[in-house]
């Protein structure tokens, strides 16, 4: 078994118009920026994919990554907890004129909805958001004297993820706090695409250190010396 592909364009092949796309990362930590930019490259060359529903904690920062996808006009809707950042222009400008949709989800609910999607649990109850505007229209129920809100799973057509180490079977480790949503998204997507700083042979990662087992991963591409989104942001880089 070898899930590696040779280049970024091949890695993101099959992500098409109107799909739901999970993108790992919390701010710049764990953002798979090379995969995102490969998707933007295809859009610029072919006009596709567009009309995407993107699931991420945030809604882009500056003029790179998800913000550059939004700028390019590829994103119909964001599902996120915090669509603000140091430089939120890309999302804010389109949101104000109604050119992009927003489903605002509390951060822990977002994580658990994705986890549920990957785990085959269609709905669950959480205390989060009970009695607030974000619970409007959702079923509620009492358990042991406390009120809870019903939330539904989130699944996606594809996920883009940044890992530190991968083996050719798709087993993954992550760097520091960069794992955040990625292990959950890997399980919740039909097609999970990973960029890894280094790809090793099976057995090259101690099984006790593996965070995401390869069963959740479909494609891996090696991106040595991967860029860090926050560092690019601070350097004022714009993509394209």
């Amino acid at each position, binding site marked *: 078994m070898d899930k590696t592909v040779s280049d970024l364009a091949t890695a993101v092949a099959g992500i098409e118009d109107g799909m739901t796309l999970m993108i790992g990362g919390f701010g710049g930590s764990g953002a798979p920026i090379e995969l995102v930019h490969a998707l933007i490259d295809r859009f610029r060359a072919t006009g596709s994919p567009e009309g995407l529903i993107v699931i991420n904690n945030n809604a882009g920062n500056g003029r790179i990554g998800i913000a550059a996808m939004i700028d390019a006009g590829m994103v119909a809707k964001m599902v996120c907890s915090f669509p603000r950042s140091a430089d939120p222009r890309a999302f804010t400008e389109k949101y104000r004129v109604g050119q992009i949709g927003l489903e605002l989800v*509390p951060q822990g609910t977002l994580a658990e909805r994705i986890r549920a999607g990957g785990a085959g649990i269609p709905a669950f109850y*959480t205390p989060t958001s009970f009695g607030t505007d974000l619970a409007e229209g959702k079923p509620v129920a009492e358990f042991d004297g406390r009120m809870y809100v019903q939330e539904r799973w989130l699944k996606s057509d594809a996920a883009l993820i940044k890992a530190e180490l991968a083996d050719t079977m798709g087993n993954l480790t992550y760097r520091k*706090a960069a*794992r955040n949503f990625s292990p959950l998204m890997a399980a919740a997507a039909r097609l999970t695409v990973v960029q890894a700083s280094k790809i090793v042979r099976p057995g090259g990662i101690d099984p006790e250190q593996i965070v995401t087992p390869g069963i959740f991963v479909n494609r891996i591409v090696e991106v040595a010396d991967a860029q860090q989104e926050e560092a690019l942001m601070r350097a004022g880089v714009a993509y394209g």
Partner: protein
Amino acid sequence: MTEKLTNAQIAWRAAQDIADGAYVNLGIGFPEMVAKFQPPGRQAVFHTENGVLNFGESPPEGEEDWDLINAGKKAITLKPGAAFFHHADSFAMVRGGHLDVAILGAYEVAENGDLANWSTGPKGVPAVGGAMDLVHGAKRVAVITDHVTKDGRPKLVKRCGLPLTGVGCVTRVYTSLAVVDIESQRFVLREKLPKLSLDVLQAVTGAELLVDGTIGDLIVPEV
């Protein structure tokens, strides 16, 4: 308005109630200041929603590792015994009742324990982050805040007028003038600045302050 505590002093007072070894989440912004004022000999373990336990201060400028950040997206460092985990585990810690204390900021706190701290209304781009999760699950949910808004209106109110973050969730409020507990849906005054009269304090508070036993003096060093 009479003299009042600075934000740093409010944070200092809140820090005095955090036990050694407590697992603590500090909200983004002003609450982060609480970490600086742990009493000597006590060490809390700080949790950040994006997946780190036992993190420390920001590194010097130029030494940031942007894969190692907190929920406010500031660069952090690790203390010995730190741990990384994914978001579902992180919010299991939050909702599952594993944190001892969460300390948050507030626009309004109501006497029934309702908190409004995420939205000032329908204008602009709404953003919630982990605020609605954090108010559920921690054994104590405390608020640190100025006693009144910038234009002098009470932040401790009968009922919140702004969009709620959580219902009946706050247990203690540390303000620039007083320490107030929320018990049985009422404000109970625990401490106030020594020179401040109860009448003056009540006049800048939007709901009745009950007195149960003695009122302690809120004495905070210059910090």
